[in-house]
């Protein structure tokens, strides 16, 4: 089995640090889904997680008006394994530090995003890089929490 390193992506999407740029994600993900036979349910999960991850970088990592780039890399480290790596050059910020919301009481809307990342991914990993942050998400083709 050949394991592809994160620095050998099969596809890459670069976005400016504006929330409006997130609108490019669905069609990019859709093209990958067609090319790599990603099921509709997994494609949905990927959309949920990437929207959350990228919006977190823009809103919390870069903050108001700060310019920067958010790059999403795609690779398949193994058959039926879809890896998305979100990299930025923003201030160090680990989105996984947010507590998982307690859904037993009255739900609150804020903080749900990380909960989705944990639920829908097979593997979720944050790395602080010298210049910013890297969030790695792996979705399994067979069942990504779907």
């Amino acid at each position, binding site marked *: 089995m050949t394991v592809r390193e994160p620095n050998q992506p099969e596809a890459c999407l670069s976005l400016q640090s504006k*929330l*409006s740029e*997130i*609108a490019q994600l*669905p069609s990019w993900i859709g093209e990958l889904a067609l090319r790599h036979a990603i099921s*509709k*349910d997994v494609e*949905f*999960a990927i*959309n*949920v997680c990437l*929207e*959350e991850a990228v*919006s977190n970088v823009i809103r919390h990592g870069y903050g108001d008006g700060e310019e920067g780039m958010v790059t999403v890399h795609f690779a398949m480290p193994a058959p039926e394994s879809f890896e998305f790596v979100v990299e930025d050059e923003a201030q160090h910020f680990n989105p996984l530090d947010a507590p998982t*919301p307690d*859904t*037993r009481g*009255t*739900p609150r*809307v804020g903080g*749900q*995003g990380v*909960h*989705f990342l944990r*639920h829908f991914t097979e593997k979720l990993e944050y790395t602080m890089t010298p210049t910013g942050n890297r969030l790695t998400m792996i979705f399994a083709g067979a069942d990504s929490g*779907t």
Partner: protein
Amino acid sequence: MAITTEELEGGITKVVLDGRLDIENAPAVDSQMKTIAGGRNSVLVDMSNVSFLGSMGLRALVGPALAIRGRGGKMVLFAPNEMVAKVLKISGIETMIPVHHEMNTALAALL
């Protein structure tokens, strides 16, 4: 995302959402839902044509639901697809905004 409303018997307002409830559409939906929720106490949100729901989209549903509930009213979600329903379940929102997959039970919940 397209939003249409229909007044049903019993003072129930049916809101039909059609499209993606994502970060791009959420603000507009939130604004329109607040307007709708501002004057109605029994709201059925038809989710059958909602193809995507992310965490930002949840806000467009929760805000109006809380407003309606604060006035003693009710809001329910109708017929989300499987993955949209999963998002509602994972987030726990379905404990606050009931989800129904049959129209008769959705309407009954509002009466």
